[in-house]
């Protein structure tokens, strides 16, 4: 569902190359994009899910629509009995998130989000260091994404902005790197110097007695747009015995 940038550059190439997935249908309201994305004659096409025939033989839907349409698209897919993989950001409010996850669980369907940064080689390396215990209890996680060209021109970036579009990847890494649980406090700040933009987000966890003398644990994520000449993602993890 949705044939924009991420579908054309990430999902459709993978699905087309996969020997274990057959593409059954493509849905997009744009007729031109729909025609160009329909790689085989036997692939059904429709401008919306309701346009697909009821007996379409499908198991899994990949939702790549602009993020502000994710919740309704996922709900329609679950109602049809399809497992769902959704591009990030999953949805843009926690009520929808809980409702959709609960609906999927009730129907015995899988619902997962493409928060794929946690599978990057460098992230996996740091996660391994953390899980090994060599760094001790995690006290600080710092994540930064600098983009030379500002907000991505994709539908995701345009429809919900940099915080949701880029922040989803960074924030997901907090839990990919550690088992901190739910934060006790969250704060964000922003700066807009057109065309530059900087967003900072800090989450705090209450320190546990006996581990770091009760000091709070901090995780910070920052998105800097237009302040640099080259895209770059950086991260650091500090434990009470070491850092990576």
């Amino acid at each position, binding site marked *: 569902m949705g044939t924009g940038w991420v579908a054309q550059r990430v999902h459709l190439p993978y699905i087309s190359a996969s020997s274990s997935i057959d593409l059954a249908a493509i849905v997009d309201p744009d007729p031109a994009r729909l025609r160009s994305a329909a790689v085989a004659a036997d692939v059904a096409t429709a401008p919306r899910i309701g346009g697909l025939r009821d007996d379409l033989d499908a198991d899994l839907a990949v939702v790549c629509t602009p993020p502000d349409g994710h919740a309704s698209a996922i709900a329609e897919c679950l109602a049809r009995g399809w497992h769902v993989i959704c591009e990030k950001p999953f949805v843009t409010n926690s009520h929808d998130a809980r409702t959709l996850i609960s609906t999927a669980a009730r129907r015995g369907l899988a619902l997962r989000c493409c928060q794929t940064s*946690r599978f990057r080689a460098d992230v996996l390396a740091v996660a391994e260091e953390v899980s090994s215990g060599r760094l001790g209890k995690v006290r*600080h996680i710092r994540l930064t994404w600098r983009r030379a060209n500002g907000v991505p021109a994709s539908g995701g970036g345009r429809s919900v902005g940099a915080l949701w579009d880029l922040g989803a990847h960074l924030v997901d890494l907090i839990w990919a790197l550690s088992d901190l649980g739910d934060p006790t406090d969250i704060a964000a700040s922003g700066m807009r110097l057109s065309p530059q933009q900087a967003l900072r987000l800090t989450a705090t966890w209450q320190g546990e007695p006996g581990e770091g003398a009760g000091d709070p644990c901090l995780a910070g994520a920052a998105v800097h747009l237009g302040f640099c000449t080259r895209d770059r993602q950086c991260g650091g993890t500090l434990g009470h015995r070491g850092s990576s």
Partner: protein
Amino acid sequence: MGSKGTALIRSVFGNSPDRLSACGPALTIGYLNGSSLRQHDHGTGTDDYAAQNKKLFSTLEEGGTWPSAVDMVRVVEVLEVAHRDLAIQDDAAS
């Protein structure tokens, strides 16, 4: 892929936690983020979005390496609060 990244860290800083610690809080692993299917070679081997997605698609089972339902909700909750914070600041500035 993880072992290659770890190998890089160890080749530079050794296996000792003390040496890792001595390097300070910011061993930064750079990451060149180019076009989606271009290989990202940042000295830790290679990585790309297709490989990341392959891991996601490889199983629909609960748990494992998938971002869990709990993590999915947590990400939305954090961004929701941050978004609200930023909106309040925008209102105050305008």
